[in-house]
C-alpha cells in the first residue's frame, strides 16, 4: 500500500468513525460501523489510525467528506464495485440517521 493510499484510507476510516460517534440512534451508529468494517475488509484489515482532531464538523459535512473520501479510493486501485457497495451502505446509514 502506498503512503497516499494509506492516507486516503485513514481519512475514510476517520469520517466513518466520526459519523458513527455522532449518530442519533444505535442502529445508525451500527450501520456506519458496518460500512467501516466493509472498508477494512476490502483492505485485508490494514487499518491506519483514526485521526479524531480533524472531525469537528456537523454530520452533513462529515457525510459529504466521507462520500468523497470513499470515492477517492478508486484512484488507489480499489475495486469500483466494492466502492459503490460501501457508498450504498453509507447512504443507507445516513437514511437511518434521520437525514
Amino acid at each position, binding site marked *: 500500500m502506498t503512503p497516499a493510499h494509506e492516507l486516503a484510507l485513514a481519512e475514510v476510516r476517520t469520517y466513518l468513525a466520526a459519523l458513527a460517534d455522532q449518530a442519533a440512534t444505535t442502529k445508525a451508529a451500527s450501520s456506519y460501523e458496518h460500512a467501516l468494517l466493509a472498508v477494512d475488509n476490502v483492505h485485508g484489515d490494514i487499518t491506519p489510525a483514526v485521526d479524531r482532531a480533524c472531525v469537528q464538523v456537523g454530520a452533513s459535512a462529515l457525510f459529504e467528506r466521507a462520500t468523497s473520501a470513499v470515492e477517492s479510493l478508486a484512484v488507489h486501485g480499489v*475495486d*469500483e*464495485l466494492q466502492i459503490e*457497495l460501501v457508498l450504498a451502505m453509507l447512504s443507507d446509514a445516513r437514511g437511518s440517521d434521520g437525514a
Partner: protein
Amino acid sequence: MYGESGASMRQELAGLLRTERVSQRLGGPGRHPSSFRTTDDERASLGLLIRGYRQSVLVWCLEAATAADPYVETSIARAEPNPFKRADRDLSPLPALQTALERATRSSTAVLPNLEQLTTRSDVPLVEAWRQAARAAVMAERDLDGSEVGQLGQGQLTLRQAQTLVADVSAICQALIVLDRRYGRASSRLAVDT
C-alpha cells in the same frame, strides 16, 4: 475466461450502482438526463428485459455458489434446534447463501433472456449495461460447467479459488440487492407522483 467475465460483470454492476433516477433513464417523465422519451408500455417492456438480465446474473450467482463447494458439510457440531428460529438460520454462511439464492431464483417469475436479447445492443444505456452484465454472467456460467480442462467445474477448485469465487458471488449478490431496493423505491416514488 472467468477472470474477464467476472471483471466485466463487476464493472457493469458498479456502473449501474452509480446510475441515479432510473425511470428517467428509461425515458420516463421528469427532467431528462437522456434525449429520448418512452411510453409507459415501452418502459414496461424495457423493465421486463432488465428483469430477465437480472435473472441471468442471479442464476450465475447460484451456480457459482454451488460450484465453490458442491458438497457443503460442516464439522462443527450443530446446536440444538430452536423451535422459534427458522431451520435455515442454523446453516453456516455458504449453504445459507446457496439456499437463499436457490429460493430467489426459483420464486422469480422473470424469463431468462434468449440469445437474440443477449446479443442485440440496446440504444438505452441503462438496458445496455444490464445486457452486458447478463452476457458476462452467461459467459462466466460456461466456465463453471467443467467440461473442459482448466475450467472451474464442480469440485475442481482449490480452496483459494473457491474463496475468491464466493467473495465475487457475495459482492454481486449485494449489488443486486442494493439495485432491487433502489428500483423498488424509484417505482414507489413514481406511483406517488402519478
